C-alpha cells in the first residue's frame, strides 16, 4: 500500500472516531433531556438506536486492527491507533449508559427531586465532548482539564447521593407511599451512578489521548 494511502487512512480513522464520539455525545444529551422531561418517545428512539452505535463500534475497531496488521505502524502512529482502539470502547460504553438513562425514563416525571439532572448530566456530557476535542486537536492541557473536571463531578455526584439518602431518613407514610419512595430513590441513585460513570469514561478518553500525545501515563489509571 502506498505510504500516502496509509496516511489518508490514519487521518480518516481520527475523523471517524471524532464523528463517532460526537454521535455518542448527542445520544447521551438526548437521553438526559428525555429523562428530565419524562419524554418516553425520545427515550425509545435512543434505546432502539443503540444497535447502530454497536455496529459502528465494531467497524471502527476493525479499522484499527487492520491498520496495525497491514502497516506495522510505529511510535506516534501506533499510539494513535491503540488510543483510538481504546477510546472506541469508552464511547460505546457511554452510549450504553445513555441507553440506561433512556430505559429508566418515566412518563411525565423527572428522575428524583434531589437530582439536578440538567446540571449534573450535562456536566458529564461536556466532559466527554472536551475529551474528544482534546483527542482531535492533540491538546494535552485539555486532557488534564477533563481529569480536573471529573473531581468536581465526583463530588457533585457524592453530594447528590447524600441528598437522596437524607430525604429518606424519617420518611413517613403508608406502605404504598414507602414503596414509591423506595422506587424513586433507587432510580435517583442509579442515575447518579451512571452519570458519574460517563465522567469516568471521559477521563479514560482524555488519559488515552495524553498517553498518545506525550507517552505520559499520568492519567491512565
Amino acid at each position, binding site marked *: 500500500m502506498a505510504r500516502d494511502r496509509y496516511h489518508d487512512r490514519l487521518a480518516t480513522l481520527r475523523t471517524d472516531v471524532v464523528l463517532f464520539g460526537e454521535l455518542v455525545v448527542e445520544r447521551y444529551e438526548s437521553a438526559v433531556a428525555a429523562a428530565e422531561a419524562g419524554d418516553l418517545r425520545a427515550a425509545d428512539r435512543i434505546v432502539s438506536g*443503540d444497535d447502530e452505535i*454497536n455496529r459502528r463500534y*465494531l467497524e471502527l*475497531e476493525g479499522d484499527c*486492527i487492520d491498520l*496495525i*496488521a*497491514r502497516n*506495522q*505502524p*510505529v511510535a506516534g502512529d*501506533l499510539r494513535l491507533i*491503540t488510543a483510538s*482502539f*481504546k477510546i472506541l*470502547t469508552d464511547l*460505546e460504553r457511554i452510549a*450504553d449508559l445513555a441507553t440506561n438513562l433512556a430505559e429508566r425514563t418515566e412518563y411525565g416525571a423527572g428522575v428524583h427531586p434531589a437530582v439536578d439532572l440538567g446540571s449534573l448530566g450535562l456536566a458529564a456530557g461536556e466532559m466527554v465532548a472536551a475529551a474528544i476535542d482534546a483527542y482531535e486537536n492533540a491538546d494535552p492541557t485539555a486532557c488534564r482539564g477533563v481529569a480536573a473536571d471529573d473531581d468536581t463531578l465526583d463530588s457533585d455526584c*457524592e453530594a447528590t*447521593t*447524600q441528598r437522596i*439518602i*437524607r430525604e*429518606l*431518613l*424519617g*420518611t413517613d407514610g403508608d406502605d404504598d407511599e*414507602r414503596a414509591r*419512595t*423506595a422506587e424513586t*430513590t*433507587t432510580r435517583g*441513585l442509579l442515575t447518579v*451512578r451512571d452519570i458519574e460513570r460517563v465522567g469516568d469514561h471521559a477521563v479514560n478518553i482524555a488519559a488515552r489521548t495524553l498517553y498518545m500525545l506525550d507517552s505520559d*501515563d499520568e492519567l*491512565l*489509571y
Partner: protein
Amino acid sequence: MPRNEYQAELAALREDVVAMSETVAERLEMGLTALETGDEELAEEVINGDDEINQLYLDLEKQCTDLIALQQPVAGDLRFIAASFKIITDLERIADLATNLGEYAQVADNDIFPSVDIQAIGETTLAMLDSAMEAYAAEDRELCYTVNDRDDDLDTECEIASGTVVRELIEGEQLDDNEIEPFMEDVSRLLLTIRDLERVGDHAVNIAARALYMIDNNDELIY
C-alpha cells in the same frame, strides 16, 4: 522471527494475561477481606499494589501491539491478540475497583446493615472473573454464556442489597444531629461498595464477551 517462536509468543501472551488476572483476583479478595475485617494494613497493601498492576498492564499492552505489528497475524491469531488487548483493560479496571474497596475499608464502618451481605456479592464477582478467564484461556464458549447469565444474578443481588439499604433507611429510627454525618458517610460507602462490585461483574462480562468474539467471531455478548 521463525514460526515456532511466534507461536511461543502467542502462548506466552495467553499465560501472561491469565497470570495478570490471578494477581487481580488476589487483590480483589484482599480488598474484600479488608472490608470484612477492617484490617487497615491489608487495605494499604491493596492500594499500594496498584502501581504494580498498572505497570503490568502497560507491559502487556505493548506485548500485544508488538505482536500485531511485527507478525501481522491474521484471522484467529489476530482476534486472540485483539481480545487480549481488550481484556487487560478490564483487568486493570477491576484492580482499580479492588483499590476502591481498600479505601472504603480504611474509612468506613461497613457493618451498619448486617442484612447486606457484601462478602456473598464479592464471592459471586470472584467466581465470575474466574470463569471469564477460564473461558478465555480454554476457549470455552459455553462458559462465556454462563458468565453473562451469572451477571443477571449479580445485578439482582446488588439491587436487593441497595434496596435493603434504602428500606433500612426509611424504616430506621431517627438519629441525633451529631450522629447523622458519620452515618451518612457509612451509608454512602456501602452504596459505593455495592456499585463497585456490580462493576466488577460488568468487567467479567466484558472479558467473557471478548472471549466469545475471539472464539467464534460472535459479537452477541459484546454490547
